[in-house]
């Protein structure tokens, strides 16, 4: 009995100051993939949150920012388990993350069970996350996978004259969604998709698929990323690479361009589209890249921030910005914080970003082309951009909904070409 009393008194003594201190700190949980195909990008995400916090002087709305990193392996169940750990054990106020598509959908559902907390998406790009039954407390300041594909289709038709393509894309939600953005644009510009191949995420041997690609096409669209992309390119060049390539958003990311070995050289001349352009002349972007390069030693970072990194940076920026606006007042189940997040457009290194009624961003998509950098490496060169791309890719809500959710067979290219 005495023992129990002492124990509970000392427990209380330990807890009281912690409770008092909680008033002066705000705790971020960084939910990020640090295992599997996107491990490198995930690590860059963590670096960028650190950068954003450092730039804010470690403070937001008069409170000290603390953060906890919760590593996932890109599977939804691990993600939810880690998110639960962040909320229940670490007691975080705001979750920044997750990184990949199916994780995002899982987190949308989990967010509904924690209405007092707020989730700001890291860089996951599944359309469904903010399109189908969105959660009130789930915000996405990055464009979704479909938006990232927009602009590329019309570019290859108009600038390159490629009108017949076959596609190889990863068989999961991001693969479908990113492909949909490309296909909607491409088909409405008069392009034709001859054949679609879907490969499981994490496939390492694409020999059979490469052989099955048709000969009489202008280009092949590749919607794979990370190590899968490197494996594909390696095997594609070993099989005697012959056709032009068009890259999905994660095809020519830094993760692929900085890989060691020469597999990536098959990418030279490939147009891709995505959330960023490394050589974007916009001063806001230039400033951000410089800050990134100054903040970390050269061997611990990418030459310039990766897609994943920028996503997490913008998420942290949004959180800090909103906290400043409301002087760090997270009472009322973070009601004010969410209102502050949703209201005015946020200035980001990628240009202004505004949210729609689904708490989904509209913003700029950049078209890049892979070129040699003259020093034995590869770089992305910006060749165009599409501004104010919204969630429905310029279609009306009804038309976009009628087209159906991204899947292997959606969108129907012929139907879009007729309508466009």
């Amino acid at each position: 009995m005495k023992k129990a009393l002492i124990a509970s008194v000392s427990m209380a003594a330990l807890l009281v100051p912690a409770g008092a201190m909680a008033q002066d700190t705000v705790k971020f949980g960084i939910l990020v993939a640090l295992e599997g195909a996107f491990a490198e990008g995930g690590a860059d995400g963590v670096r960028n949150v650190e950068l954003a916090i450092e730039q804010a002087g470690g403070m937001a709305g008069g409170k000290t920012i603390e953060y906890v990193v919760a590593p996932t392996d890109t599977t939804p169940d691990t993600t939810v388990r880690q998110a639960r750990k962040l909320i229940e054990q670490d007691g975080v106020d705001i979750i920044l993350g997750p990184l990949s598509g199916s994780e995002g959908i899982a987190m949308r559902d989990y967010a509904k069970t924690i209405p007092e907390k707020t989730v700001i998406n890291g860089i996951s790009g599944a359309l469904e996350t903010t399109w189908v039954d969105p959660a009130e407390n789930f915000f996405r300041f990055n464009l979704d996978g479909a938006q990232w594909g927009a602009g590329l289709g019309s570019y290859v038709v108009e600038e390159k004259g490629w009108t017949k393509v076959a596609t190889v894309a990863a068989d999961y939600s991001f693969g479908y969604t990113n492909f949909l953005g490309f296909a909607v644009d491409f088909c409405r510009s008069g392009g034709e998709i001859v054949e679609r191949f879907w490969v499981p995420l994490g496939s390492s041997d694409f020999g059979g698929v490469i052989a099955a690609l048709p000969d009489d096409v202008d280009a092949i669209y590749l919607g794979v990323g990370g190590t899968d992309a490197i494996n594909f390119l390696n095997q594609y060049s070993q099989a005697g690479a012959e056709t032009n390539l068009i890259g999905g958003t994660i095809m020519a990311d830094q993760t692929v361009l900085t890989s060691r070995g020469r597999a990536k050289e098959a990418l030279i001349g490939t147009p891709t589209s995505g959330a960023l352009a490394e050589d974007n002349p916009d001063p806001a972007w230039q400033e951000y890249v410089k800050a990134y390069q100054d903040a970390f030693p050269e061997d611990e970072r990418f030459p310039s921030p990766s897609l994943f990194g920028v996503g997490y940076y913008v998420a942290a920026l949004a959180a800090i910005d909103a906290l400043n606006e409301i002087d760090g007042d997270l009472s009322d189940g973070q009601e004010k914080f969410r209102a502050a997040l949703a209201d005015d457009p946020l200035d980001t290194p990628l240009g202004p970003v505004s949210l729609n009624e689904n708490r989904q961003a509209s913003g700029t998509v950049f078209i890049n082309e892979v070129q040699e950098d003259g020093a034995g490496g590869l770089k992305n060169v910006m060749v165009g951009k599409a501004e104010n791309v919204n969630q429905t890719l310029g279609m009306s809500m009804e038309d976009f909904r009628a087209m159906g959710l991204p899947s292997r067979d959606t969108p129907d290219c012929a139907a879009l070409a007729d309508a466009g």
Partner: protein
Amino acid sequence: MQGFIRRNPIWSLLIALVVAVLLWLIFAPWTDEMEELLGRKRIFLNAIFGGITLGALYFLVASGFTLIFGLMRNVNLAHGSLYLLGGYIGFEVSERTGSWFLAFPVVFVVVAIVGIILQNQVFRRMEGEELRQTMVTIGLSVVIADLMLWTWGGQSYTIYAPDMLFGPMTLPIISGVRSSGEIIYLKYPAVRMAILFAAIVIGVAMWVVLNKTRLGMLVRAGVDDREMLAASGVRIQYVFLAVFAFGAGLAGMAGIVGGTFQSLSPGEDTRFLLASLVVVIVGGMGSIPGAALGALIIGLSEQLGLVYAPTYSVVFTFLIMAVVLAFRPQGLLGERQ
């Protein structure tokens, strides 16, 4: 072989039939109806060859694994780490010297030495305690994986095949006939043919060593009855060391092969450990021909699955394993203990 046919006439007939049909599908030109039913022949052929070369890679990894298990009853769960380590070292060697071929002997020796250290310093201390050994190998694999992550970082590495093996080569197999009547021969990446050839040579060499030499005799005797072999005056520790070194070196060389036609990155170690586990479970623990057969089946099922049923291709491998475990728990060519 003849014993098997005598004992299982129906099974032998079935297997012979399947092999015959497969060979006919590969060599005979396809008619239009067949192309309609099965897709273009080029796709089928590429899937088959892709499966066989993938099987060759699996065989290189799994044969060392199964040999070590067969002799020492040691389930070496750090085997995948040896594969990845070999790949990374191979990348460094080929990058610095510019020679892909030189990487093989260097990696074989280096990884074999790592294997010797493991056997002599770690496993020997807990001989006969199989569970403990297995747990230690899990621990080691985690430690080695982290050390490799520290040294080589998380990015992907691909090893560049030498120019003479780069690009496709033409095989004397008809992949189709143009409407003009011209025959199209199958084009296939040269480096994969080289890997397949090397795997076959290594497989045959292993068979010869195991069945025709004194060392092979010792190893086979050790697999059957370790204690008896030790009691008859053989210094079994040396046999263990040799086998462990050879198995480890083989896994290291497989790492170069894997880095050449796939890529190397953290996580590949467990992927290949899992693959070799499945291969030896299907083929039979401790059996070299079993490893070859298992590797071939798993490689083919992965590639044919990827081409013809991409949604389920991941499932096939484990389905095969489950079926084998249900109906022939000792593996296709394993012996009942």
